[in-house]
């Protein structure tokens, strides 16, 4: 299967500062990819380059098109939320639906109206009368009703309460996603998306720090609750991260590191489990703000 997003040596300078530093990305169809990185790491810049919103250097192909020169063609199959709560203030709910239905051949009006019906939004309501969360709800209802091959969501649930966030991700997985679609999500609320992701991309200082599928991550990274008597032995195996929970040491091991580690070897040290993406992220990004 050909890649939905493929980048080679993608680079973006803002003046002298390098926002994205020669990264390679390969995202296949039918994946839900979490693009995760600290503030200012280059996630949004990478996405904007892929969406043809900014100029960049390097090879870049999205759905077989170059977003820099074929953006108009590309936008028929791509949809994105680059930032939430940016709908124009004068827009009415019904006008928004009419407009998107008018310009987008892949928009399913009834679907959008169904999503809207689940909110407190009314057809004549203007964006300027809405709370931040309601604006996001409207935006998501519009975007989720578009049958795009690639959906890019940059912090899609900012400002939403947890009930709606959970419902949104549930919808995204059950109602929207299928094997022909690809979704790229960035978010700081990693815990909420990790169960729907199929792939992880960690980005740090404009470079890809980790690119793997969730299965690979599960095989590769192991978290061990080390008994107090085995701490020294465990440290000898060079954990990539160590923290203390209720007096117990929790260590994170990379099974692929030089020498290699087996699960059984680690199981001898204490209780073994899969690390959360958030813990893995923190371990990978150690020293970012130092």
């Amino acid at each position, binding site marked *: 299967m050909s890649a939905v997003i493929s980048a080679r040596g993608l680079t973006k300078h803002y003046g002298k500062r390098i926002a994205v530093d020669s990264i390679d990305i390969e995202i296949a169809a039918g994946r839900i990819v979490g693009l995760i990185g600290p503030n200012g790491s280059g996630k949004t810049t990478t996405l904007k380059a892929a969406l043809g*919103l*900014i100029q960049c250097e390097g090879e870049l192909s999205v759905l077989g098109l170059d977003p820099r020169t074929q*953006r108009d063609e590309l936008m028929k199959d791509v949809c994105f939320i*680059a*930032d939430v709560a940016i*709908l124009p203030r*004068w*827009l009415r709910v019904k006008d928004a639906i009419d*407009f998107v239905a008018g*310009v987008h051949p892949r928009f399913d009006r009834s679907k959008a109206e169904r999503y809207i019906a689940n909110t407190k939004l009314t057809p004549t309501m203007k964006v300027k009368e809405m709370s931040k969360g309601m604006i996001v709800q409207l935006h998501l209802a519009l975007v989720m009703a578009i049958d795009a091959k690639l959906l890019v969501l940059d912090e899609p649930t900012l400002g939403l309460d947890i009930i709606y966030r959970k419902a949104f991700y549930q919808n995204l997985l059950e109602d929207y996603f299928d094997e022909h679609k690809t979704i790229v999500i960035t978010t700081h609320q990693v815990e909420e998306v990790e169960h729907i992701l199929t792939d992880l991309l960690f980005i740090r200082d404009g470079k890809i720090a980790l690119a793997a599928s969730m299965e690979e991550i599960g095989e590769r990274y192991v978290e061990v609750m080390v008994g107090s008597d085995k701490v020294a032995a465990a440290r000898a195996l060079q954990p990539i991260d160590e923290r203390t929970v209720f007096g117990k040491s929790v260590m994170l091991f990379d099974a692929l590191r030089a020498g290699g580690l087996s699960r059984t070897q680690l199981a001898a040290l204490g209780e073994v489990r899969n690390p959360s993406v958030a813990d893995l992220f923190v371990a990978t990004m150690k020293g970012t703000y130092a």
Partner: protein
Amino acid sequence: MTTPMSTMKWLIRRELWEHKGAFFWAPLAVAAVIVLLFGGGFLYAIIANPSFHVQVSGEQVMTVNGLPPAVLAKLATAAASSYLVITAPLFFVLPVVVFFYCMATLYDDRRDRSILFWKSLPMSDAQTVLSKAVTALLVAPLATIAIGIAASLILLVIGLLGGAIKGINLIAPVLANVNFYLAPVYLISFLPLYILWALPTVGWLLLVSSWAKSRVFLWAVGAPLVALAILAWFDFLAGRFAGVSMNVKWFGEEIVARVLLGVFPGIWFGEVNGEALAQQQQAGLDGPLLLGTSYATLLTPGVWIAAAAGCAMIYGAIRLRRWRDEG
């Protein structure tokens, strides 16, 4: 079905949603004021005065209860050919509205970041910018013309009925006058000329609106004026010390005036030889003569060059919009 034409239709409709106040309510409010002021004033005068009086130094010297047929005919011709003139204030509102619309339209959505929403939909930058140019050059003037014609007709009806009640019945002669029907046609016939003259201003403002990172007004208005001032100063110095003179007046008229004032309807009368208009004998406005002298300005290359420059600047605005996504 989504076609480029249907997308264009929706884009223009979007502009009207956003600027309903400027394109409809503002001219409607002005029209309402005109109708109330003139129509109401006229009705009051009729009710307050039983007949037409001519007063000299407060003393009534003459009471007119009817008019001679020749005067009636002249009055009817004047009313039939120039009844639209009363809505002239609308055409002072239009350029102001269009000016500020063009200046803000490609800037505001960058400032509030809603451009990211519009750019997430399948429409090109060319379609977006062109929809705004069409709104400024065609939709807004048409709305004003329609409102102007409607308000004029209301006033004419009030005037004719009021006159008839007072014994000066002009209804039949006005309705029989071909100019009564042609006046709106003449007015609409000015639109193509208006578009040509407005193009450089609309193009310039869209370009600045698409380019500026802040202070659009300052760039749009200040830059040409500062350029003119610098040129005038330089010309003054050069003329004084080197004996060289540049054509500053030309720069002011052909560049600055065209990029800033082109949206004013009738700006072309600045180039018209006024003698023909001053010599007209007919009562009321001579529509064909006005149109003829106005369109005669197209015989000079300046209008065409400026209109072409306007198109080029609109193209520039499209190109700039392609990569200007962040406010």
